[in-house]
């Protein structure tokens, strides 16, 4: 299954029922969908609006979805009370660099697994897939201790390198690479291209949808991750945005608008990404479910 082939088919065979039943069913269906729609959106609307509200406004008009008057003190507070730029930078470095490395390493590994024949290939593939089953928390303590001995706690290396590959990405790339006709690399090989060149010049340019899917899903997961940065970093200089917001939310900041402003800001990159690249988000999820 290629990544993009999932959402294109319409369903020709929707069951049909009697007229009246159909009408009632449709009404019920749109009521259900409508309620869900409102329920899905309201928390986000409230979050953004709350980030512009004063504490007094929140206490006096809790039933209101919108501010009575707009104030920027939440955003100013984020700036003054949190090491905000540093948190933002850390989040970008952590999620960005890790994603870039993951895409590179995963696709390389998948290239070998999908396109090369060698002794031990199946064992490797099974091993990779097996790591998918391991809950991340089970490895957390030893990894923490390993990083402690390496002196990597509170560093970018420590945050990034252990996360720089994902079995899921390898799996997804492998599926995609297997769908690329083998004649292409045969042709390149006859032209004298080596494996690296075939991987980089032939396979990767064809794998853009897979790259986008893996990159987007990885970036989102890393950007959102809480437990990992919470465990690996302890100094305020190395915290990421979610970890910083959570820690400060408990300790220093008591103003709701400040925390809502922080949450809104941390949501912006993901929301923009989703707006422009929904199909990759959705394809990534849908493909994994099909097989």
């Amino acid at each position, binding site marked *: 299954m290629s990544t993009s082939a*999932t959402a294109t088919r319409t*369903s*020709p*065979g*929707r*069951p*049909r*029922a009697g007229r009246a*039943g159909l009408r009632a069913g449709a009404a019920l269906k749109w009521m*259900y969908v409508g309620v*869900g*729609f409102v329920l*899905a959106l309201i*928390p*986000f609307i409230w979050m953004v609006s709350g980030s512009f509200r004063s504490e007094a406004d929140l206490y006096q008009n809790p*039933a209101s979805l919108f501010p009575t008057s707009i104030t920027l003190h939440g955003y100013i507070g984020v700036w003054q009370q949190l090491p905000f730029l540093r948190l933002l930078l850390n989040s970008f470095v952590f999620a960005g660099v890790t994603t870039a490395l993951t895409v590179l*390493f*995963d696709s*390389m590994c998948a290239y*070998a697994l999908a396109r*090369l024949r*060698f*002794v031990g*290939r199946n064992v*490797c593939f099974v091993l*990779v897939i097996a*790591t998918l*089953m391991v*809950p*991340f*928390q*089970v490895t*957390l303590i*030893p*990894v923490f201790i390993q990083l402690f001995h390496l002196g990597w706690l509170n560093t970018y290396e420590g945050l990034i390198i*252990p996360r*720089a590959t994902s079995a899921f990405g390898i799996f997804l790339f492998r599926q995609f690479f297997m769908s690329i006709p083998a004649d292409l690399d045969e042709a390149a090989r*006859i*032209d*004298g*291209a*080596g*494996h*690296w*060149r075939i991987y980089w010049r032939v396979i990767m340019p064809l794998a853009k949808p897979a790259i986008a899917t893996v990159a987007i899903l990885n970036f*989102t997961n890393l*950007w*959102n991750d*809480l437990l990992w940065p919470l*465990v690996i970093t302890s100094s305020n200089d190395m915290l990421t945005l979610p970890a910083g*917001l*959570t820690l400060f939310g408990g300790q220093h900041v008591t103003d709701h608008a400040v*925390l*809502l402003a922080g949450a809104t800001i941390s949501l912006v990159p993901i929301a923009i990404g*989703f707006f422009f690249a929904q199909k990759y988000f*959705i394809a990534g*999820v*849908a493909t994994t*479910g*099909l097989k």
Partner: protein
Amino acid sequence: MTTSTTDRVSPRVRGGARPPGGPTPVPSARRRRIRWQPAWLFMAPSLLILGVFVLYPILRTLYYSFFDWSVGAAVQPFVGFGNYIKLFQDPSFWNALGVTLEFTVVSVVLLIVLGLLTALALQSEGLASRITRSVFFFPTIVSLATIGLVWKFLLDPDIGLVGGVTKALGLAPVAWLQSAQLALPTLIFVSVWRSVGFAMILFVAALQGVPGERYEAGRLDGAGRFSLFWYITLPGIRPTMLFATMMLTIQSLQVFDLVYVMTGGGPLYRTDTLVNLIYRDGFVNFETGYAAAISWVLFALIMLISLLQLRIFRYNDVD
């Protein structure tokens, strides 16, 4: 691209039989070495990382679980199965196990049912359906930390919208997260609210994959709406059902972020899940060995439940 400088022998090797009258076959020992070397180079970064930071640590966790291990302590006495025995006598472990299982069972059932219902309602490719699907899916990609924070405030009896509306309706505001009875159901609600879109997307893809001819055939046989659903749709989406159930179960068993942000495990440990317990014992109380033992129990639990689910679905397939 005809330069042959970068490559020594390998182009010939794979297509060894290809070029008619090409170079003589390479001796087999050498051929084999050349064949697998590039593969291992390509896999080296990923395998190294997975080996060092996933596979080895699992065994390491097992090892720690047999010691009264704590980071930085001078002596790490071997206690054999001591940690596991302690664990089975520890009420806070049983509590966390119960909380985790309750959370998992209720949220997975709700997610599968609501996810499928939503997918059935929104499976068409019309614009309205597609936009609504995007809206439903959106919470899935927002961090649990953010979602936890926003819902915590929304549910706050003093400032939250939910409390405000309750008061405006003339009812007494409810302290959702401070109540021992309501805290866990509230967490389940938030978790379901977030992931319903994920389940929906999986099911939409599955529904669209069921061949239309099957419905035609069923209709010709006079099948009604519900028998079509029961005999054609459900069997058609069974693989996705299995996958979704497993993914959601594994995710739910590992719930941490929501708990950490919204309740911290309280009130009265009524939302203290296994991972929250691992976090507290391992990284707050520094009882590393003990936390490692709990981690292994969690691992075993996840494996067991995954295998069980595979079994159940396989068994149904035979029917």
